[in-house]
């Protein structure tokens, strides 16, 4: 146990936690935006995969890093559009559509990757985002090193949380999004097109998810591997429930999960001889299930989540 406390005090642990949290923050915010508008997006796992591939591929083909992020977000948004076309405009099952998008988007990513790099045996590498130290703040002992010497994408993730909160709770657009997830008929009755609001929310949300995927190939690692998203998308879906659909708690949840993962990597080194490594790897998944159980009775679901809207139809 003493080992674990020592780990918790190191800057390296916190730096890793913040890094690992970044894709979860993007993914969770993305899912949160979709669900707030009333659309469960189970395409998240595939959209993160396609974002990881697209961002990486952009840079590998000679594009700039930020260009890659934008490209990944756009590709993600296109899959969001596909999802919205099915669930919002045609009113099809959100569960099955999401699973279909995940199967389609991830297999398409692998196909394109293989197509462009048919003979690569070891995954080719790119030059990923460098850490940027924030002058002044990064000199604070431990905290500075952990929080203020990170990749620009990490800063973006952390800035996104208050930004999404502000838009959802303080602007007319955010009100319309939340209302679309609570009572779409009310939105329509006030002259706002529900289908457009929901479509836009799913596209933006999917863009966030894709950036989360891109973070993994462009900032955390420097190459694209098969199966590298590895259930992170599903964990984000659980985190949204854990956070009761609020951005602040979503951030907290992402950090807690990332902390667990960072801890397990380090704990493996100290107690790995006694406990099999698979146990540590399974922790985030098990914790996700436990988090959902804890919050199950308390949360207020968006009332119109999973409910399709058709114009002129009374609900």
């Amino acid at each position, binding site marked *: 146990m003493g080992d674990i406390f020592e780990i918790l005090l190191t800057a390296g642990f916190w730096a890793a936690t913040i890094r690992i949290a970044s894709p979860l923050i993007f993914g969770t915010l993305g899912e949160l935006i979709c669900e707030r508008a009333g659309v469960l997006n*189970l395409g998240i796992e*595939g959209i993160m995969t396609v974002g990881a591939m697209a961002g990486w591929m952009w840079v590998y083909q000679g594009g700039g890093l930020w260009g890659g992020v934008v490209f990944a977000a756009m590709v993600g948004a296109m899959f969001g559009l*596909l999802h919205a076309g*099915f669930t919002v*405009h*045609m*009113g*099809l*099952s959100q*569960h*099955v*559509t*999401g*699973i*279909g*998008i*995940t*199967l*389609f*988007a*991830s*297999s*398409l990513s*692998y*196909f394109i990757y*293989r*197509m462009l790099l*048919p003979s690569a045996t070891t995954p080719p590498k790119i030059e990923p985002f460098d850490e940027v130290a924030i002058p002044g703040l990064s000199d604070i002992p431990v905290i500075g090193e952990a929080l203020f010497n990170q990749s620009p994408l990490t800063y973006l993730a952390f800035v996104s949380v208050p930004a999404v909160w502000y838009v959802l709770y303080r602007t007319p657009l955010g009100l319309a999004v939340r209302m679309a997830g609570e009572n779409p008929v009310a939105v329509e009755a006030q002259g706002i097109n529900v289908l457009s609001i929901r479509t836009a929310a799913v596209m933006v949300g999917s863009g966030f998810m894709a950036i989360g995927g891109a973070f993994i190939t462009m900032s955390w690692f420097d190459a694209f591997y098969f199966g590298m998203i*590895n*259930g992170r998308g*599903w*964990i984000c*879906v*659980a985190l949204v*429930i854990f956070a009761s659909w609020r951005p602040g708690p979503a951030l907290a949840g992402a950090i807690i999960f990332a902390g667990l993962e960072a801890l397990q990597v380090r704990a493996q080194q100290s107690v790995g001889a006694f406990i*099999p490594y*698979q*146990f540590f*790897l*399974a922790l985030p*998944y*098990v914790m*996700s*299930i436990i988090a*959902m*159980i804890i919050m*199950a*009775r308390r949360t207020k679901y968006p009332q119109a989540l999973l409910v399709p809207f*058709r114009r002129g139809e009374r609900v």
Partner: protein
Amino acid sequence: MIIEPRQSVSLLRAGLAPVWAILAAMLICAVLIIWTGTNVLTAYGLLLKGAFGSAFAINETLTRSIPLIFTGLAAAVAFRAKFYNIGGEGQLYAGALAATYFGTGLITLPSFLMIPFLMIMGAIAGGLLLLVPVLLKTRMKVDEVVTTLLLNFVVLLLVGYLIEGPWKDPMSLGWPQAASIIDEGVLPTLLAKGRLHLGFIIAVAIAVLIWAMMRFSVLGYEIRAVGYNAGAAEFSGIKVGRTVVITAMISGGLAGLAGVSETAGLKGYLTLDLSPGFGYTGIAVAMLAQLNALAVIPAAIFLSAVYVGADAMSRAVNIPTYIADVLVGASVLAVLCSVLFSQYRVRFR
């Protein structure tokens, strides 16, 4: 865009929906094939030949359809009750774990008892794994999609631990795999040549059984009623929670059978690459079959043919095998669409 329900849907129109979906999915893949520089007809010709072009190919296609029939049935039954079990992959491995635990020497029975015994144990293991998500769903309204998906990862890690650790076969020359199933438990092959085994006949028989259950039995009636309208089902006296739990046990059990059949039939021992995602492909099978248990058989054979054919195709021309996965994903989406169009009339203006 205006969507209006059709007053009545002819059987022909309903039956053709999956066909249109498959054509649409093939069209999407055709775009990818054109990109690879291969002639589309040539590519699909190679795929067809690879899947059905010889006795060996047909044998292989049918063999690979066995786990897909089981996982397809698993999804079809659960989805009927609107219980979205996406954990077929995990339940498949749970079945395989049970087959390995009981079938590698712990118990020895004559073949005609040993095979059913392993099947039952595998089904129980698959069902038990689904017990946690289904109880969370019925008791606490925890979304089953996320819990079943997450459990897939947990089960795979458990399998990894077991076959690298306590269950590792000392004779495996360092490969992470479990000991072989004893001879009494192995599903015999059906033909002199090829790998097609008894699992195929069992899978088809169970599909017929499930079809009859859904259509003629009180339980099947209750599962359908709960899936269509849980409120009305509850009002009429159906115990909704209990029905969903029973449905889940059947579904998990069916996926577990896929694991037994792969372990005791095809491979002979448990490894981490026992299933290349049969659990997920089962969802596509069920959707193509429109959740009809009998239609699961041709749907499974079709998707199996896609995989087997794509292997052959990619060996012959420069097309990555992932084309098969793309086709599976695209067909899930396409079938959703085509079923909608068969039930509704869409007008644009």
